[in-house]
């Protein structure tokens, strides 16, 4: 039996128009739809793929967050996780989150821990490496492919600048996933209905200090105004581009 932990980050839908609270301290959540972080979903999907390949697996989905993340975990259950765990603490700080995951996973003999390569809200790419370090597991980052090799190891592909790296690793391994490792799955109705009855446990957070304190979020500078030139005014266009130091 392969024991798999899939870390799920709860993030705003990619199509959301992001607004901040008036003081800029946090995301304004009104009217925002939250989803499973797409990169985490690759991990979940790969784990389910192992089951479809005939492996005995147990899949636990985990998310650090308040009660608002439960629908996201429920969706992971609908897609095919066997049980879910919510570590009841806000996920503001990568080091804090990684320590929570490691504290939960220690002693539970996971063979594989899947994460996304990054979460699409704060794009830190920090958690997976830290979890691997804290657990003393092998770490494969940015995995685009995974194939079992026997019962206790796998071959991985990693995308690297201008090429690909192929690695073998013996479990336990932390894998941070990206596009290619699997295809996203659409939950079916049976899965959605079954998810209501699968266990979703709330776990108290470990005693870990917060390492950073979020202060402020700002938007990127607004794009400049559009300036129109008449078709015959090529000179005006070139002149403006030169003035702005663009050519």
């Amino acid at each position, binding site marked *: 039996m392969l024991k798999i932990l899939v870390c799920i980050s709860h993030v705003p839908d990619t199509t959301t128009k992001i607004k901040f609270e008036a003081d800029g301290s946090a995301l304004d959540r009104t009217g925002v739809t939250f989803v499973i972080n797409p990169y985490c979903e690759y991990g979940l999907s790969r784990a389910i793929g192992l089951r479809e390949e005939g492996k005995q697996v147990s899949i636990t989905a985990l998310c650090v967050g308040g009660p608002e993340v439960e629908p996201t975990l*429920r*969706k992971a259950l609908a897609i095919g996780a066997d049980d879910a765990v919510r570590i009841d603490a806000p996920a503001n700080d990568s080091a804090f989150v990684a320590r929570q995951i490691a504290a939960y996973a220690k002693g539970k003999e996971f063979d594989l821990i899947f994460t996304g390569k990054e979460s699409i809200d704060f794009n830190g790419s920090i958690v997976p490496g830290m979890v691997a370090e804290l657990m003393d597991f092998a770490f494969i980052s940015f995995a685009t492919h995974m194939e079992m090799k026997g019962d206790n190891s796998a071959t991985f592909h990693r995308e690297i600048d201008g090429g690909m790296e192929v690695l073998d690793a013996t479990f336990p391994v932390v894998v941070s996933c990206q596009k290619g490792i699997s295809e996203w799955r659409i939950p*079916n109705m*049976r899965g959605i209905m079954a*998810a209501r009855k699968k266990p979703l446990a709330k776990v108290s957070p470990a005693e870990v200090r917060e390492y950073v304190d979020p202060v402020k979020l700002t938007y990127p500078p607004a794009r400049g105004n559009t300036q129109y030139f008449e078709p015959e005014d090529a000179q005006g266009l070139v002149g403006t581009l030169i003035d702005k130091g663009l050519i």
Partner: protein
Amino acid sequence: MAREYVNMKNLRFLLHDVHQIKEVLAQPYYAEHDLESIDMMLDAVKQLSDTYLFPHYEDMDRNEPQLEGGEIKVHHSVRPYLDAMGEGGWIGAVAPMDLGGMQIPEMLGVSAAFVMAAANNGATGFNGLTTGAANLIVSFGSAEQKEKYLPKMFEGSWQGTMALTEPQAGSSLSDIQTTATPMPDGSYRIRGQKIYISAGDYTETENVVHMLLARIDGAPLGTKGISLFIVPKYREGEHGELVFNDVTPAGLYHKLGQKGTPATHLMYGEKDDCHGYLVGEPHRGLSYMFQMMNEARLLVGLGAVSIASAAYHASLQYAKERPQGRRYEDGKRDLTGPQTPIINHPDVRRMLLLQKAIVEGGLSLVMECARYADLAKAGDEETRAHYELLLDLLTPVAKTYPSEMGIVSISQGLQVLGGGGFCKDFPLENYYRDIRIYPIYEGTTGIQSQDLLGRKVVIKNGKAVKLLMAEIQKTLEAAEAYEDLRPYAEKLRAKLETVQQILMHLVPFAMQGKIERYLSDATLFMELFGLVVVAWQWLKQGVVAKQHLVSGKDDPDFMESKLHTMKFFYHYELPKTLGLAERLLDDTVLTIAEDTRELVN
């Protein structure tokens, strides 16, 4: 920018806030579902639509099915789509769980169908027809028929159809001539032909299950002599193997729109070897079919509103991006400044608001009907009778308003794009062609209107209308709690009186047996009644938007836009009832054929 075709927030607003699906979910029949799972299912439908439907919309239109060597081939995206639908559990979603369905509320079924048809209405006919055909078997089939057909249909590997229409029997189904001869083994031999049968045959399905209307030899004339049969393309042979059942495609129609779904001309029993299996009792076929048609008609209204939704989003995006002309400021236009996006011109804005008002008003009406269907299904005898009566009354309206006004809406949407709207570079011309079928199939607008005025408003001494008035009354009272909604409640109240006045004027013709006179303007009555009913739906939405604004709990921009569109409907659309009322109360009738001379020449 990725193009949108539905507003999911609006769909959730209607489902949860306006029509309160939680009341339906509280019924024990729906115990396997909750609000969270309903939302998850909606998300799944959107994902399905984004993946399997929307990307193929244009290509399906450009590469229509072909009949070659006696075989019909459909677009390559149909098979993977139907597999995904079957795998997802969507084809049998509304059916009871003990028959392999998911027992979801109609309200969710309607919401799902809305998203999918907006994504690609050329494809959704395939599964929609299978669902409809399967529902007939669920309601009236024998245990053996259920076991034999439902699993294959629900998994998407067998296609279902509705085989009603014949060359001489379109609107007039009592003229059906296809025959069924009883055989000693209990089956029937079917002989005849059917035309326009959607998804009637194609190679990318294992089998086709026709729900076919025919006359058993010696059956009485008219509607009381028509029976319902299951006629598969391949029947089960002696050893359980599938053998050809003598159903052949004689032709394929080339249509204006909805080209993805083949409309077929089918021959049954050319070699005298077409076996049919009676569903339910002999001679009851049309009444079974009518029960099903109620659902089908709702889905037709929904389909129309879906396409209109997709068209609205395409127009809206264009209007925001297309700079053309300038606005007046202090009575002048600054010709040196940049052009303004066309959404800033009042005329364009009017067209967009009209589209939004029709789409969101029409969808709300269909959702209301679905809610009645759910409450009827789950309730006791009395509750069932109550909601069924309301549903009976509103179904022809929910079929017709979106179909007729959807055309207007898309036409205006096309206008928003100017020349671009007329060309294939943009999808508007495609939506415009696709929606045109909606007032025709599942009973034309003329037939729906006669059903409304000739039957629904008068059945049980006008009880259905009374029930509707009571429902509307609840909305009026809720609206009157808010100062700024009160004028709209008053407008609606006045229109209800207009409806009564018109009925008092017309019904005496029916009582005097002057039926042709009574029904001569039925379609105009439908138009007026549709406006009033949709005005009610807008007020209902307005009340909820107002409640949200007062409590400050949700997206204020969305709620303000709702109220704005409600006002638009009341100030721009509802006044059209004035002209209609004048006509309906006018005693000069110029449309009844005369015996002695022909004045239309």
